[in-house]
Each structure stands twice: as C-alpha cells, then as structure tokens.
C-alpha cells in the first residue's frame, strides 16, 4: 500500500495534465460538429444523384458517417492516439523509474518481493488510466449531448468511448515490458512516442488502403471505431487478441522483472 501510494503520487500530476489535455482535445473536436453536419448535409444532397450501386460498392453508409456517431468515430482515432501515448509513457516511466532515478538500491533492499513492487506500480498506473477515462468519458458524453440535439445510440457511443480504456491498457503493458526489457532505459519519451506513432501510422495506412491484415499488427485496429459503428459491437476475435496480448505482456513483465539483475548505477 505504501508503494502504491508513493507511485501514484508520482504520476498524479502528469495524469491530471494528460486528462485535462485529452478533455480539451475532445471539447475542441466536438465543437466542430455543427460545421461538419452542415457540410455533410450538402454532401448528402449531392450524393442523391449517384447510383446506389456505386455507394454500395464503396461500402459507404452516408447516414451513419454523417451522424454524430460517425463523426465521433472519426475523431476518436486521434483521441485514442493521445491516450495511447499517455499510457505508454506511463508504463515505461513507472517501470523504469528505479533505473532512471537510480533508486533501485533504495527500493530493492526493502523487505518486499519484486512481484509486490511490480504490482504496486501496475496498480498505480491502472488508477491513473481510470482517472483519465472517467474524465474523458464524462466530457465526451456531455459534449455529444450538447452538440447533437436529436439524440443518438448511447450503447454505441459508450462502446466507442470505452475502447480508449482498452487501448490504453494495451499500450500500458507495451510500455511496461519495454522498460523491463531495456536494462538502461533513459529516453522514455522518444521510445514511447516512436512506438505509439508507428502503430498509429500502420493503422491509418491500413485504413487508407483498406488492408485488413495489416491491422492485426497495430492495437489501434483492435478497437476500430468504424467497425463498432457498423456492427454495433466490438470485433470479438480482435477483443480476444487484445486480451491475450495484455495478459501475456503483463506476465512476461513480472517474470523478467523478478529474474533480472539490477546493476550498480
């Protein structure tokens, strides 16, 4: 409990900054919806002249895309990018803290197992993510209700919103395993930023060219908001994949962390 409190206190400030930033991004994005829906209206009128067959071939449900949920699933991609960066920085940061601050001699000579150290750190990071998601979810919902007066499917809305939490969990565990594997990780931010953006770009690219297989290589794809919008459910196989991935990464983090040599500064 003492370690949990200590770790949590350490990440609290940055968690609040991240949460507020993500909330701010959300507000900005949602406030663009009125402009968007005007533009969408004119598009709808234009599309009326197009043959149905073409639109079907494009797999293009215009009403869904121009609704608040369509808009939301688009902007959500970028919100999840921010969330993923936060989670990965958090994971790498919290797990490499003793190496970076050279406090391994302090913490690891205390009467606690390395497992319990890892558990405290993970729980602290987990709490941070919960806070961010609580802040995000309430802001997003509030904004959606404000900008869309006609109402929308709350189920889909929350499903999309909740995928931020899952994406963050994945990147948190990616961060933790990175930190325990690289024995002297100092450049937390460059490594995290590079990794998250790489996965993000893979996802965007696979979407641009419609390549499904490429999507399996990036956690962003596992909770693709367009999929949720169209199918009104999470993609079950991707969900399992994500779950297995997180469990695997966390278990290996424990194993590596308990087995590894902690060298002198």
């Amino acid at each position, binding site marked *: 409990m003492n370690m949990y409190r200590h770790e949590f206190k350490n990440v609290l400030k940055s968690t609040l900054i991240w949460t507020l930033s993500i909330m701010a991004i959300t507000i*900005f994005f949602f406030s663009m919806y009125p402009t968007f829906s005007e533009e969408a209206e004119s598009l709808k009128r234009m599309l009326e002249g197009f043959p149905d067959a073409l639109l079907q071939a494009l797999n293009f449900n215009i009403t869904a895309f121009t609704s608040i949920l369509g808009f939301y699933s*688009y902007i959500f991609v970028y919100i999840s990018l921010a969330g993923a960066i936060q989670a990965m920085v958090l994971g790498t940061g919290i797990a490499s803290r003793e190496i970076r601050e050279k406090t391994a001699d302090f913490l690891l000579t205390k009467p606690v197992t390395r497992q319990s150290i890892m558990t405290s750190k993970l729980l602290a990071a987990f709490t941070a993510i919960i806070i961010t998601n609580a802040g995000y979810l309430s802001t997003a919902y509030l904004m959606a209700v404000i900008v869309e007066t006609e109402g929308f499917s709350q189920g889909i809305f929350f499903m999309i919103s909740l995928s931020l939490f899952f994406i963050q969990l994945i990147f948190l565990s990616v961060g933790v395993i990175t930190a325990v594997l690289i024995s002297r990780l100092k450049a937390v931010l460059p490594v995290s930023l590079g990794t998250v953006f790489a996965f993000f770009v893979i996802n*965007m690219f696979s979407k641009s060219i419609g390549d499904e297989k490429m999507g399996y290589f990036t956690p962003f794809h596992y909770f693709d908001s367009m999929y949720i919008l169209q199918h009104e459910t999470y993609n079950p196989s991707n969900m399992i994949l994500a779950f297995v991935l997180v469990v695997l990464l966390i278990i290996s983090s424990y194993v590596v962390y308990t087995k590894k040599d902690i060298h002198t500064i």
Partner: protein
Amino acid sequence: MNIFLQELKAYRKSLTIWIIGVLVMVFSGMSKYAGMEGAGQSLNELMNNMPGVLKAMLGIQSLDVSSPLGFYGVLFTYLVIMLTVHAVMIGSTILSKEERDKTAEFLMTKPVTRPFIITSKLFAAAVQVTILTIVSFVSSLAAVYYFAGEGEFFREILIFSLGLWMLQVLFLTIGSGIAAMKKNPKKAPALSAAILLFTFFISIMADMTENLQPLKYITPFQYVTADMVINGNGIDGIYIFLTCILVSVFIWVTYDRYRKRDLYV
C-alpha cells in the same frame, strides 16, 4: 569534431532502428499499391466533390490513390509524422541528455566553449535527420518505380523529400530551442512532444473544416501537402519562408539561452 563523432556514435543504435523503420514503411507501404490499381474514375470524381472532413474520415484526403504518386502521397503524410517525431525528440534530447545522465559536468569542464558544444550536437542531429531523408528519398524512388513501373516520378519525390527534410529541420530546432530554454532539461522532451502533438492536432482540425484555414500557418504539418506537390505546385513559397524564419529564430534561441544558462546538476 570529437563531440560530433561521439554524438553520432551515441545515436547509432537509434539511427539504425529508424533507418530500418523508414525502409520497412516505404517498401511495405508501396508494395500494397499493386492491389489498389484500377479503381474507377467515377470514384475520383466523387472524391473531388467530397467535403474535406469526409475525405479525412475515409483516410483518403484529396489524393487519387489509384495513381502511383497519389498512393505515395498517402504514405508520405505518414512518413512526415514519423520523421518529425524523430526530429523533435533528437533535437530536445541531444542537448538535454547531458544533464539527464549527469554527464554535464564531465563535458562542460572540458576546454571547449558552449557554442562549440551546441554546434557539434546540432550538426550531429542534422546529419542524422539528413541521413533519414536520403534513405527515405532513395527508397521511395526505388519502391515507386519498382511497384508502379512506368512513369516520371523523380521530380515529385525529390520535392517530397526536400519538404520532409525541411520539416525535420524545423522540428529539430524547435526541440533544441526548448531544451536550451527549459531550466530543468529533463522536461524538455515532454514539452517538445506536447508542441508536436499540439501542432498535429491543429493540422487535423484544419483539415476538417474550411473555417479553420488560417490555422494552417501555425502548424508545420500543413506546410508540405501531398496534393500540392502532386499537382505540380511544389511547396508554397510562404511556407518555405516561414520555415526559414522559424528555424533561424530557434537556432538563435538555442545558442543564446544555452550559453547563458545555469546547468542543472
């Protein structure tokens, strides 16, 4: 010269990883091109009439992905994202890492001036950024010709690459300027990342609606756009001018602040 070489050595692992990343991105990206050929002309018509936000939502921008350069243009936007992440990170860490790793005392007590140290470090960073640009240029040429076959692409890909280099240099100096300004240099990478993310999100919002056009001047991500280059318009002179001014200002800030600053030891 010794500091310059030492810095190149210190980053050789990271540079190798980035070079591999660029190669993988360009080749695996362009290899998908073959499967995209032959999309109908009517599709392009539709695309051209579509409002910005919807194009952005579909991840196609205003590019005709059925043409080799249009397809490469999509890839290019993602190359820009990745390589600017690299540039801003290297710019902010190459100066601040001495203080982060507590080697500042070692370096600063050597018989060299601080401007000399900055020059060596900036050159080392610039060389790496340039290497990445060259790798991207050569591999792009090879990949586009290999996967797309016939055509004249040299001039466009050269302009793309020059634009890429320009943006990298800009973000590199933004990073170094921040590192020189911050009292606690450990926070420099975080602030640099925040600026990068901020401008990235601004760029996305500017893409989404016509009303936000003026924002294009404050986000470098709008300085070099794929459709401009493909349409034969190259890079708008105003953006080149703006970049030159910003780069000079940030270089001046880097030298001026770092010279006068108390080291954080």
